[in-house]
């Protein structure tokens, strides 16, 4: 069956099948982005999502949506409790992959003479690519504490950060209800040596310049000042999260028939959240999410160390916020208790939300939208209207538009490296091939994606950040 999108409001489209029947799914986009979204299997995948038992309202596609597996990347769907399902395919393998922003008072003039040394030191200090780091020797008990205690365990037991960091991490850096005993030995074996590593693919660490401020009052409350340096970290739960998803997808694929569930795609395998399989996955997924929070915390701690070595300990890096974009969260929307799946989509609570940290009450939840390598990233704040329009969700990045193979055929990695260097961006990436895969041409225009989010009323712009140094995973 073929699917298409029909405009129903400014920056909003409705998904329809080939008989022009509406399919309980909406996409936020403009003409150009919907054309890109319609070129791959995103719409078909979003239509498949609407077949999840217990779906609440509509499924949503964000403006950075592109094809993935199971859910499209940039897909949001909620199921109503207590009978709705939870689907590991609605979260993805990289559980709680997310973004963390650190702000500084360092001026560009102070950073520039040290740029090469700092970026080089970051690349040496924070392992990237495949495999392990062994930055921390985690025995079984210590790993359990991190799986169930997240960032708090890391800060309290290993002094890897500041207590005040916890206030500005989604969920305080720890999702309650995590179950370390639902995480397999295989997942532990993969993940334990990887705490504090970036990984590969589109993960990165970027030193940035705050280039433009759109909302001066909001920027001041977030501690962002034009001309200052910031650091953005994008990574997730590494092999531990990948294996948790693999393990529980298999369990649900085998179990769902017992619950009478039949789906058009086995990657959407699910069981009721209230079932033993659903509860066990929820506990394991939360444990993996805590591992991801701790991973970003340890990386941030080491970033602070690098900056202190080169620019002095007084140059503090203050955590602005840390938010995931591959999660399922139990949330109350109106009168309904929901399990909200966000795969490649960011939670974006508005100013009136009681979930905001005290520091950001009345302001809105910070959202970070990284662009492609070499282009801008954005800091946004959620609007209250997103609550009813998109289940309080927005995009998570620019969104791929070009396959990796096509990007490599179109862009030579060594030339891209030279071009970025000529633009004053220091790049550390071991492989020219991987560099080419993440070329700016492979992604949509992040400014355009952000403008759709603003036009649809889901979030507002605060600041635009441009890269000065990139350590690519």
């Amino acid at each position, binding site marked *: 069956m073929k699917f298409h999108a029909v405009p129903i409001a400014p920056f909003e489209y409705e998904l329809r099948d080939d008989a022009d029947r509406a399919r309980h799914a909406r996409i936020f986009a403009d003409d150009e982005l919907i054309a890109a979204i319609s070129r*791959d299997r*995103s719409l078909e995948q979003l239509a498949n999502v609407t077949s999840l038992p217990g779906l609440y309202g509509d499924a949503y596609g964000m403006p950075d949506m*592109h*094809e*993935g*597996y*199971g859910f499209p*990347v940039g897909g949001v769907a909620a199921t109503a409790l207590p009978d709705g399902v939870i689907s590991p395919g609605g979260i*993805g*393998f*990289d559980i709680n992959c997310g973004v963390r922003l650190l702000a500084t008072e360092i001026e560009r003039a102070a950073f520039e003479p040290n740029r090469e040394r700092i970026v080089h030191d970051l690349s040496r200090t924070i392992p990237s*690519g*495949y*495999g*392990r780091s062994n930055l921390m020797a985690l025995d079984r008990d210590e790993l359990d504490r991190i799986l169930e205690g997240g960032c708090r365990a890391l800060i309290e037991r290993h002094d890897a950060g500041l207590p005040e960091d916890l206030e500005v991490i989604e969920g305080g850096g720890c999702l309650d209800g995590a179950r370390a005993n639902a995480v397999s030995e*295989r997942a532990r*074996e*993969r993940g334990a040596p990887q705490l504090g590593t970036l*990984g*590969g*693919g589109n993960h990165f660490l970027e030193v940035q310049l705050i280039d433009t401020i759109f909302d001066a009052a909001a920027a001041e409350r977030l501690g962002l000042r034009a001309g200052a340096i910031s650091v953005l970290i994008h990574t997730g739960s590494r*092999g531990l999260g*990948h*294996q948790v*998803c*693999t393990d529980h*997808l*298999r369990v649900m*694929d*085998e179990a769902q028939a017992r619950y009478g569930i039949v789906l058009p*795609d*086995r*990657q959407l*395998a699910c069981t009721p959240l209230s079932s033993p399989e659903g509860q066990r996955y929820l506990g394991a997924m939360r444990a993996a999410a805590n591992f991801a929070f701790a991973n970003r915390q340890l990386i941030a701690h080491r970033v602070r160390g690098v900056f202190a070595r080169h620019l002095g300990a007084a140059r503090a890096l203050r955590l602005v916020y840390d938010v995931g974009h591959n999660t399922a969260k139990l949330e109350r929307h109106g009168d309904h208790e929901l399990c909200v799946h966000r795969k490649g989509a960011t939670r974006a609570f508005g100013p009136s939300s009681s979930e905001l940290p005290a520091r950001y009450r009345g302001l809105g939840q910070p959202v970070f939208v990284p662009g492609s390598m070499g282009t801008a990233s954005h800091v946004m704040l959620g609007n209250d209207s997103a609550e009813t329009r998109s289940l309080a969700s927005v995009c998570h990045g620019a969104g*791929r*538009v*070009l*396959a*990796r*193979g*096509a990007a490599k055929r179109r862009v030579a990695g060594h030339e891209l490296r030279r071009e970025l260097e000529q633009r004053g961006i220091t790049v550390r990436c*071991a*492989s020219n*091939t*991987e560099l080419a*895969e993440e070329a700016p041409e492979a992604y949509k225009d992040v400014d355009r994606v952000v403008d759709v989010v603003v036009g649809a009323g889901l979030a507002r712009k605060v600041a635009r950040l441009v890269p000065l140094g990139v350590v690519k995973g």
Partner: protein
Amino acid sequence: MGWHAFEQHTSDVQVRVDAATLVDLFTEAGRALAEIIGTPAGVPSGAWRRVSVDARDRDALLVAWVNELIARTEIDDQLYTEIEVVDLTATRLDARIRGVPIAETRTPVKAATMHGLQIGAGAGGVSATLILDV
């Protein structure tokens, strides 16, 4: 005998595997994975490792097999370029694998997916299209 080709996918890696027999198909899927992940530092010369996986049907078995290789590669820091399928049924696979260190990583792979997977008849015997999250 088997062969593989990479197909268009916006964000991940889609690989089509063709083979004369199912044993060859599973072997070739393992070879394709090694090619995606990186370049081997030479030829395996160490001990063989025995691997067994099971699943509820043949499609799930292919995913379980590739996921086993993904995990072993990451844990052992070895690229498994030599694969011998010893026994294969609709729900179980026994194999021997032998690896070498990775000289250069090309694309770290997170997992194999069930999305759109169906092992079926192909021009040369059997074929499957597998999407890997990278």
